[in-house]
């Protein structure tokens, strides 16, 4: 029997107080995620249970009990507090998937500061705009990434501390840099946990939109209530499970379900800090006897490409439940996983802004391959008519995915951008920015995004950000960035470019532009293809018409071109 039991029964009799009761939380109580994920588990008698098995890219193994992560959170929190970091200060985590990333997450929350995780592959410009927007006071990073911080430090006077967790003693620290080596620190047994409440800010994740700079999605400690229960019911985690969430905590899946969900349930989890290879992933599952695996369609499609024969060379019999997130999971991948693992990957749908799973497939519920599933109990999910913003009653008609606000982990604002936050709501509904239809059994079917944001490998890339960076390249006059189909990543970035006079198309130029974006923004944002054109399609008022280029890439009808200049 799964944790959720009957989906229909749960949906009929649902109240978030189920989660509150299980967490011994009553309205008005102190609620601190850092404490819930470590101290509380120890108080339940699980101090010696393994919280984290970690394997680094060199094969080095480390393991931590729940008492270890409690102490590490205390030690990091105390160190930050001694620096003067206080409640609601923003502390950025800019690290690979090393243990210090996971442990610092707890430490920052324990002192009531706001944790700002950022993907470590971000280039200096991506890093700058997010630190500047958040007014970040401290950043915890590795020496390999410190160079990117040094490049932008002059523009960030409010960034007081650059804390390096693996500083090489033989080299001098630079301006504002501090060395902090967890292994060499005396563990702090007791610390005063900051008494955060339900509405105290906890995590600040950045997400990209079509226009403007990335937005800081602010969550609060009360988000634990839905992250805990969705982990329990959708991921079906139980006390003896060995769990692997492949997401990077630079993104919301890596924190909601790569830290908070499993650890608030006292579950043992595994982390592999290594580049992707099918062989190494299967070996990892085999070695740690992983039972529950939460991954992403891009990875699943890459595994499909690697072939069935490779699966057969490994003992993956420990697996009992699989789930996926990040982008729509195609029916072929669901069918394939059932064939090779004997288990379907169950798709889950949610966003940085929602903080927890909103629409999912559940253990025990009929799987319709290719469907997003049904709303989590307690979540009112609909598709809206794009003109009236009223729910569509008829089955099969495509509309805008929307949710009735009020679930515990809903974002509370976009940092310093209340106006954009308000734009996410219409007629009393939160607008997800995606389109779908609902069938006669209540299953949602994803159609596509309702904007130009590119979803590549489960990560959102703003075409605006890439275009803005491209025109900073010396050779680029104008650019338009769209998605193009990709077998593995679903979409990848493609750039249309016009060159400045005096520049000619050649091999070195293409590579120079690609690497310029890769280093400045991130590898995800790097155009996988560049097409040079004499001019870009524009409206008569001069606005670049991305949709025409998008339609060309996807083989779609280009639609109304009446506003096209020179038409």
């Amino acid at each position, binding site marked *: 029997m799964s944790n959720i039991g009957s989906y229909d029964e749960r949906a009929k009799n649902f109240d978030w107080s189920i989660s509150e009761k299980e967490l011994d939380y009553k309205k008005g109580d102190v609620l601190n995620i850092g404490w819930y994920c470590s101290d509380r588990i120890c108080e339940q008698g699980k101090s010696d249970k393994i919280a984290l098995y970690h394997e680094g*890219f*060199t094969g080095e193994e480390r393991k931590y009990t729940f008492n270890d992560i409690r102490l590490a959170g205390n030690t990091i929190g105390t160190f930050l507090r001694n620096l003067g970091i206080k409640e609601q200060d923003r502390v950025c985590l800019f690290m*690979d998937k090393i243990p210090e990333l996971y442990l610092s997450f707890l430490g920052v929350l324990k002192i009531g500061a706001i944790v700002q995780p950022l993907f470590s*592959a971000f280039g200096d410009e991506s890093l700058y705009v997010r630190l500047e927007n958040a007014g970040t006071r401290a950043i915890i990073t*590795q*020496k*390999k*990434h410190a*160079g990117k911080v040094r490049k932008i430090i002059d523009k960030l006077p409010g960034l007081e501390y650059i804390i390096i967790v693996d500083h*090489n003693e033989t080299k001098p620290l630079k301006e504002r840099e501090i060395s902090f080596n967890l292994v060499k620190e005396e563990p702090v047994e007791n610390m005063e946990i900051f008494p955060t409440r339900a509405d105290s800010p906890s995590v600040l994740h950045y997400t990209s939109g079509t226009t403007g700079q990335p937005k800081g999605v602010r969550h609060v400690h009360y988000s634990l209530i839905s992250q805990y229960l969705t982990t329990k019911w959708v991921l079906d985690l139980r006390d003896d499970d060995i769990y692997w969430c492949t997401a990077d905590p630079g993104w919301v899946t890596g924190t909601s379900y790569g830290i908070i969900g499993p650890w608030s349930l006292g579950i043992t989890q595994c982390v592999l*800090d*290594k*580049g*992707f*290879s099918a*062989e*190494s992933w299967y070996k990892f599952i085999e070695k740690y006897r992983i039972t529950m695996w939460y991954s992403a369609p891009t990875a699943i499609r*890459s595994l499909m490409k690697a072939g069935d024969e490779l699966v057969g060379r490994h003992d993956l019999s420990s697996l009992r439940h699989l789930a996926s997130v990040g982008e729509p999971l195609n029916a072929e991948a669901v069918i394939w996983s059932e064939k090779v693992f004997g288990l379907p990957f169950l798709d889950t749908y949610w966003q940085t802004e929602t903080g927890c799973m909103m629409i999912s497939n559940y253990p025990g519920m009929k799987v319709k391959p290719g469907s997003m599933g049904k709303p989590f109990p307690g979540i009112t999910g609909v598709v809206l008519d794009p003109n009236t913003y009223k729910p569509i009653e008829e089955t099969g008609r495509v509309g805008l995915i929307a949710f009735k606000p009020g679930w515990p982990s809903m974002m509370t604002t976009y940092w310093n951008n209340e106006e954009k936050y308000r734009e996410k709501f219409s007629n009393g509904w939160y607008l997800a920015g995606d389109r779908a239809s609902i069938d006669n059994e209540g299953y949602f079917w994803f159609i596509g995004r309702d904007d130009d944001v590119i979803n*590549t*490998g489960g990560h959102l890339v703003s075409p605006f950000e890439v275009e803005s960076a491209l025109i900073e390249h010396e050779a680029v006059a104008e650019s338009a960035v769209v998605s193009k189909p990709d077998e593995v990543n679903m979409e990848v970035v493609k750039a249309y470019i016009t060159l400045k006079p005096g520049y000619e198309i050649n*091999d*070195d130029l*293409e*590579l120079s532009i*690609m*690497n310029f974006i*890769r280093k400045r923004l991130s*590898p*995800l944002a*790097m155009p*996988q293809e560049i097409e040079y054109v004499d001019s870009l399609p524009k409206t008569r008022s001069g606005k670049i018409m991305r949709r025409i280029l998008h339609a060309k890439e996807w083989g779609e009808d280009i639609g109304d071109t009446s506003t096209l200049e020179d038409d």
Partner: protein
Amino acid sequence: MEEMKDMVLNYVINEYQEDEDDEITYDTPLISSGFVDSFSMVSLKVFIEKKFNISIPDEEATPEAFDSVNKIVDLVNGYLEKK
């Protein structure tokens, strides 16, 4: 051969090495270790194709085939021999 290896190695070091304390050799795993992520592999492929004037089909440009300088050079040599 050695010249080709050094050309690829230097490119990898210049473009992808973030921590100068990390040693990257001809045999260092590049993709599986995380030195070069799967998205960045595209720019490495473009470099290889342009530099050696070859075209590598996507199905052969796998993370495994690009996982070290030596493997990349073997792949390139295979294409050069066919020319």
